[in-house]
């Protein structure tokens, strides 16, 4: 007859996480419960298989790539602090938060939110989205519904539009520039209910 208490005291490294990442105590408790629910064999960490078992994620065409973003540098497992660190990028920007000018930029700032979708395009992590990588992403998103030629022409058009220095690829800065009017803070935020 075990207890299922998930108070903050049982979360590993809770103080370091709170300082670095900025989630509230209550949010951390919820996310920890979620982490434990996903960790089916109670290993203490998540592997790719645990995330793949989420049905709604498996039907997302970019599901596999999103899962990859949790596993930095090809590692096989992600612990709770790593899990929360990735999710922190999606924390809504709270205008009331006092920004300490000396502290490093918070994880959920605009500039820190953007590398995330960039990485979904840039598979080989070379800092540029090549034409080939763009084509691959499009193929994943549409499956067999659109012909090869259509996809190629769409890819060419998009790369041309965003590419400013003419190297045939979209670098991170060019990516940021093409999205400068977008309300990234709002579109890439997930709010945890209090």
């Amino acid at each position, binding site marked *: 007859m075990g207890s299922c208490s998930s108070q903050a005291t049982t979360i590993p490294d809770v103080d370091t996480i709170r300082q670095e990442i900025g989630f509230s105590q209550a949010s951390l408790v919820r996310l920890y419960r979620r982490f434990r629910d996903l960790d089916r064999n109670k290993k203490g960490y998540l592997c790719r298989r645990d995330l793949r078992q*989420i049905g709604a994620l498996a039907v997302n065409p970019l599901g596999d790539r999103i899962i990859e973003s949790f596993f930095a540098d090809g590692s096989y497992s992600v612990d709770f602090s790593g899990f929360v660190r990735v999710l922190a990028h999606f924390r809504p920007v709270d205008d009331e938060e006092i920004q300490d000018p000396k502290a490093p930029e918070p994880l959920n700032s605009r500039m820190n939110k953007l590398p995330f979708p960039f990485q979904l395009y840039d598979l080989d992590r070379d800092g540029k989205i090549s034409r080939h990588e763009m084509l691959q992403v499009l193929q994943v998103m549409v499956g067999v519904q659109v012909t090869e030629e259509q996809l190629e022409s769409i890819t060419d058009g998009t790369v041309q539009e965003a590419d400013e220095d003419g190297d045939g690829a979209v670098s991170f800065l060019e990516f940021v520039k093409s999205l400068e009017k977008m309300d990234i803070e*709002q579109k890439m935020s997930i709010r945890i209910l209090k």
Partner: protein
Amino acid sequence: MFLLLPFDSLIVNLLGISLTVLFTLLLVFIIVPAIFGVSFGIRKLYMKTLLKIFAWATLRMERGAKEKNHQLYKPYTNGIIAKDPTSLEEEIKEIRRSGSSKALDNSAEFELSDIFYFCRKGMETIMDDEVTKRFSAEELESWNLLSRTNYNFQYISLRLTVLWGLGVLIRYCFLLPLRIALAFTGISLLVVGTTVVGYLPNGRFKEFLSKHVHLMCYRICVRALTAIITYHDRKNRPRNGGICVANHTSPIDVIILASDGYYAMVGQVHGGLMGVIQRAMVKACPHIWFERSEVKDRHLVAKRLTEHVQDKSKLPILIFPEGTCINNTSVMMFKKGSFEIGATVYPVAIKYDPQFGDAFWNSSKYGMVTYLLRMMTSWAIVCSVWYLPPMTRETDEDAVQFANRVKSAIARQGGLVDLLWDGGLKREKVKDTFKEEQQKLYSKMIAGNHEDRSRS
């Protein structure tokens, strides 16, 4: 020391006698009403008292939390993140509109920002999805004095701990032995009774006896779990030649339904105690037990069920189409097998109140014996059963649509969330075919516009 001996044995004797008398009285008070299907209302009173105590306990915990200036952990039934119920198309259009510096150009084929939609949706499902949370026990809003459901340990005061200790004493030292004794009685009566009835020649008398033996034993088992069941719309109870379908939360569902009606059970042949019970039951009336090898053969299963259903003298079949235990907050995909047979379907919705004891069987966490022990050391199992009006398959719908229609009716009545996901996701990955749905939707946005352009 020698002086104590006769004194000791006297006390022991007295204790033994009083316990025996107590137990016998209790057994008589509980078993006799079970035989006749009568209730004294003791369980309802018990339930009301418990509710008052739980409310008091939660108040004290909130007070304790306020003193320490913390917030109590409160579970959320609607998910932990704020979600917008917009469609793929709407949201991508909005993303494009917010980032586009050009005039509202509806025929944009693809934008770099489209990926934001999939990215965010993916993250949302990682933080909270509809299915994973259905396979762990439901969280309670107020504490019910069981340590297994406590999320706020540090706020328990001394008084509360004493109360909890008292609760443990009552549940383990009084209720548990009583319940085990009742369960033992119920099961042995079932086995013996059905075997004896099996020796009688087939006829009306045999059927009558068989029905009452079954009902009596199930009622004893119901009392063994201290199950407080409220039946609604009993006029819609399943009739011969029909199939009764219900949502599945635990093996106890069978006991709950079978104590109010006489059904033919369907299932796999088990070994051990279950096997003994199954073999005895089938002597008295025709239940449908499949060998393990036969279960894989869908045609064989369908054939046997159809034969049974077509014989109007045979009992209604009891089936749980979800195929696995779900935690009673939602209803998952119904397997279409039982809906292809063409019989009248009698849907039944079962909703447990987890306040008194969570009946959900998390088979990956607990084995059968541990589960039964947990059931017998809870306060009570409280549930409501609704018998819904019978449904038949319309001419223009196929088995899957019919199954979904029945499922929605059950979900609506029981106040459960109606999900299209397969309960098998507990153990397996989702099929790739579902990904195509999303891809099709997105392709329409990209390619649809391209076609318009090439046409004009």
